[in-house]
C-alpha cells in the first residue's frame, strides 16, 4: 500500500503544474464569461430588437447543448473557419462562451431586480443615463447576483476537467496520463478529487471574504456553521 503512494509522490510536481494550469484556465475563462455575460445581458434588455434576438439565440444555443460538444466545436471546428487554437485557448474560449450564456441570465435578473422607481427618481434628480447605470443599478445588481456568480465560478472550475478530452494537461488529463503509466487508478483519482475539493473550497472562501469586504453592508455568502472541519463552505445558490 505505502509503496503505491510513494510512486505517486514522485508525480507531485506534475500534479502541482496541472493544478496551476487548471486555475489559470478557470480564471481566464471566468473573466471572458463575465464580460460576455454583461454584454449579453445589456443586449437582451436593449431597445434594439436585433441585439435582443442575437442575445437570445446565443443563450438558447449554449443552454441547450452539452458543454463537451461546445469544446469540440471550438477546438475541431474553428480550424475549418481558418482560426486555429491550441487546447489552452480553445478551452478558455469554449468555457467562457458556455458560462457567459448562463451568467447573462443572472446579470439580467440582477439588473431587473432594481426597482424602476429608483431609475425614475434618479432621472428626476438630474443623473444621466450612464450615471444611473453605474451609480444606481450596478452596485445593487452586483450585490444581488454575487452569490450566483461565485456558484458559476465553481461550476467553471469543475468544467475544466472536460478539457482533458482535447488533451489539455490539466488535473484530469494529467491524472489519466499518470494512470496509464502507473495503473494506480484509485490512488490517482483520490489525489485529483482532493485537489478539486481544495481548489473549489479555496476559491469560494476567497469569494466569500471578498463579498464580506466589497459590499456595504457586508454580504455574508454562507452564514451557516462549518461542517466538522471537513471543508470550507461553498457559496450556494442565491
Amino acid at each position: 500500500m505505502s509503496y503505491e503512494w510513494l510512486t505517486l509522490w514522485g508525480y507531485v510536481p506534475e500534479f502541482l503544474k496541472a493544478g496551476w494550469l487548471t486555475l489559470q484556465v478557470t480564471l481566464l475563462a471566468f473573466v471572458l464569461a463575465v464580460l460576455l455575460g454583461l454584454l449579453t445581458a445589456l443586449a437582451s434588455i436593449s431597445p434594439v430588437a436585433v441585439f435582443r434576438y442575437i442575445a437570445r439565440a446565443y443563450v438558447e444555443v449554449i443552454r441547450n447543448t452539452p458543454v463537451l460538444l461546445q469544446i469540440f466545436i471550438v477546438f475541431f471546428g474553428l480550424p475549418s473557419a481558418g482560426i486555429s487554437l491550441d487546447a489552452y485557448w480553445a478551452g478558455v474560449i469554449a468555457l467562457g462562451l458556455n458560462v457567459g450564456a448562463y451568467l447573462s441570465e443572472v446579470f439580467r435578473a440582477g439588473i431587473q431586480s432594481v426597482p424602476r422607481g429608483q431609475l425614475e427618481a434618479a432621472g428626476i434628480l438630474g443623473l444621466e443615463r450612464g450615471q444611473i447605470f453605474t451609480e444606481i443599478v450596478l452596485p445593487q445588481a452586483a450585490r444581488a447576483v454575487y452569490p450566483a456568480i461565485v456558484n458559476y465560478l465553481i461550476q467553471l472550475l469543475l468544467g475544466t476537467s472536460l478539457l482533458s478530452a482535447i488533451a489539455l494537461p490539466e488535473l484530469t488529463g494529467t491524472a489519466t496520463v499518470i494512470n496509464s503509466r502507473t495503473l494506480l487508478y484509485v490512488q490517482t483519482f483520490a489525489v485529483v478529487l482532493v485537489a478539486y475539493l481544495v481548489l473549489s473550497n479555496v476559491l469560494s472562501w476567497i469569494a466569500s471574504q471578498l463579498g464580506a469586504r466589497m459590499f456595504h453592508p457586508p454580504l455574508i455568502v454562507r452564514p451557516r456553521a462549518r461542517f466538522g472541519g471537513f471543508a470550507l463552505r461553498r457559496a450556494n445558490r442565491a
Partner: protein
Amino acid sequence: MSIELLRTSLSILLQGLVTTLLLSVASIVGGTLIGLLAAVLRSFGPWGTDRIARLYTELFRGTPVLITLMFIYFGVSYFGYAIDVFAAGVIGLSVYQGAYIAEVFRSGIESVAKGQWEVSQILGLSRMQAFAFVVLPQTGRIVLPPLIGQYLSLIKDTSIVSMIGMSELMHGGQAIVDRIGKPVEIYGLVALIYFVVCFPLSQWVRHHDRRRLS
C-alpha cells in the same frame, strides 16, 4: 454535405440518441431516488445520517462528474471486477446528480413554513405523517421547475459518459468525424439533435421557474 452522407450520419446519430435517452431516463430515476433520500436524511436523519448526507452532497458538488465516472469505471476494474460502461454511466450520473437534486429537494422542504410542522403535531400527526402528507405534497410544486432544470443538465451531462467509452450520441458524432472529418457539419448536426431534445424542457423551466437569480 451530401444527402448520402447526411442519411448515413443521421442513422448513426439517431441510434446514439436512443442510448443517450435510455441513459438519461435511468439516471433521472436513480438520481431522483438518491437525491430524495439524501434530502430527507439531511433534514430529519437520525444517528448522524444527516452528517453523512451532507458530506455526500458537499463531496459531489465540489468535484467534476468526469472524475466520478472515471472513478467508478476504472476504479472497479482496479479491484479486479468488470463493470459495463452503461451501468457505470448510470451509477455515476445518478450519484453525481443526486447531490444536486438533494439540494433542490432540501430547499423545497425548508421553504414549507415551520408553523405547519407545529400545526401537524398539534393535530396529532407523527413526524413521518407530517412529512408525507403535509410537507411533501407542497414541496412538489416548488421543486418541480428547478428539478426539471437539473434533469436538463443531466441529459447534457450524458455526453460526458462518451469519455469513458460509452457509444451514445456524442460518441457517435466523434466516430463519424474520426472516419470522414467534416467536424463543423457533424458536430453541428449533433448539437441540433441535443437542441431539439433540450429546448422544450428549458422553455418549460424558463416559464415556470420563479427564482430568477440562481
